[in-house]
């Protein structure tokens, strides 16, 4: 409980400090809007030219896009310490001070940064979700809402876990590792479209290694009434847990890596 209070308190302070440069903040927020708006524009233009993607209708595609964009940018907003700043913490040796304090390292890293600019990205995602839900005429039920909420939560854990892999590499190699971007940003780009359109190797990668298919596509397809691979309903709530599994495994690795941490010095 105390940890959550600490986190919220840090967030309040960080937001206050970012608001000290209002014009810069505004410009950066608009830049984020252009970025995510551009991504969404790409989907709209694809729909304009191709109408369908496999068995998916335009509304379905918007819904998938919205799910990915909301969960990805919520993670980038509230998990900024892991998704953005960690390599810098290692390189500059700021991580050392965190090791001294009587709190978990991950807690402190998460408390160290927030990225409120992402709010516009999340807004674009929400817009896509509403549009998709309307066009695909989703009949919302309590179970569907539950699956939706769980899918967002699990995807956020998954994304945080994937970024944490980069942090683990970073502890060993000091430099940030671009390779992991293939999983994180690559996953975002690939999995804003349903996974069943991809050839087998990519499908395997995003089902087993970075299971966006499990945390996003299985529930989203079920909500849309077109279950992925025709899997039964109970699988939806089980598959989702893979987000928790990935995060758990990487969290253990992260703890292990921290024991091997050698400061960069100075």
């Amino acid at each position, binding site marked *: 409980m105390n940890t959550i209070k600490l986190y919220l308190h840090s967030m309040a302070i960080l937001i206050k400090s970012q608001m000290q440069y209002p014009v810069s903040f505004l410009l*950066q927020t608009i*830049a984020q809007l*252009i970025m995510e708006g*551009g991504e969404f524009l790409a989907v709209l*233009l694809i729909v304009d030219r191709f109408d*369908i993607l496999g068995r998916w209708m335009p509304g379905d595609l918007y819904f998938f896009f919205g799910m990915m964009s909301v969960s990805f940018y919520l993670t980038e907003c509230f998990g900024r310490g892991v998704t953005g700043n960690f390599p810098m913490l290692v390189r500059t040796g700021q991580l050392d001070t965190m090791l001294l304090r009587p709190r978990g390292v991950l807690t402190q890293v998460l408390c160290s940064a927030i990225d409120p600019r992402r709010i516009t990205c999340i807004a674009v995602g929400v817009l896509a979700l509403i549009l998709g839900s309307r066009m695909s005429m989703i009949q919302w039920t309590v179970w569907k809402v539950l699956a939706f909420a769980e899918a967002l939560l699990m995807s956020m854990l998954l994304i945080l876990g994937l970024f944490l892999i980069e942090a683990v590499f970073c502890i060993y190699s000091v430099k940030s590792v671009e390779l992991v*971007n293939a999983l994180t940003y*690559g996953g975002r780009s690939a999995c804003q479209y349903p996974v069943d359109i*991809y050839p087998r190797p990519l499908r395997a990668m995003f089902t087993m290694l970075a299971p966006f298919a499990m945390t996003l596509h299985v529930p989203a397809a079920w909500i849309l009434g077109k279950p992925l691979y025709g899997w039964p309903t109970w699988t939806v709530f089980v598959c989702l847990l893979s987000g928790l599994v990935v995060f758990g495994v990487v969290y253990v690795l992260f703890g292990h890596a921290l024991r091997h941490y050698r400061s960069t010095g100075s």
Partner: protein
Amino acid sequence: MRTKAYASIFRMNWKLELQYRGAVLGGIICQLVFGLILVSLYRALYAGRPQVMPIETVSTYVWLQQAFFRMVLSSDSDLAGKIRTGDIAYDLVRPLSLYGYYYARILAQKSMGSLLRAVPMLVFALCLPRGWGIMAPVSPAAFACFLLGLMIGLCCVSALENITMGITMRTLDPKGIQAMLNLLMMILSGNVLPLTLYPDAWQKVITALPYAQLLDAPIRLYTGTRQVAEAPGALLLQAAWTVVLTGVGIALWKSNQRRLVIQGG
């Protein structure tokens, strides 16, 4: 005399860019995955609704965009830092034009940075089966036009980059404006979605914009979307934009120097 100085700045930065070969490898693998994802996506789309333009053209477009990714999106991080800290004052002392100095640097960084990544990526793309990888240029003449277009595109993107930096010097905010212009560049240069797949009604306008001159124009020549007979017009448009953007950049930097306020103490 001056040209010799700029040439040596260019050479030095070329060599500097060559130093971090290890770091490049991770970036290349990442970009390869992106390329594969995009080609798979367009193949799936084509399976549902075949288009007039063959899929080979689209996959070639994707690979060339990915291979030269670094040309579009990379900036002189030193310069942004120097503007923020005020160290740019030291560069003012040099007996060279500030614009020329940074133009030579960014040109070197962009050309070497993209060359280093493009060669292995294109070799990989050549090994992929037809319709997945990159096709050969439609004709030797088209290839020659492509290379020429690519060089003009490099000069054009460097001029654009210097305008972005000129604006940063005024606003002292490297993140806001720079991020915005870079994102516009990603969208309008065909990195997010090939410009050839934009609605047909938009093509006239979108190919005339400066952002289309970086990579889109040369790629269209390579794939034969634009015939060799149309090449002179396309190359001329590229060159015209490059001249205009360079002119705007020089004027901007000159006026910046006149009302110069240095950060820091």
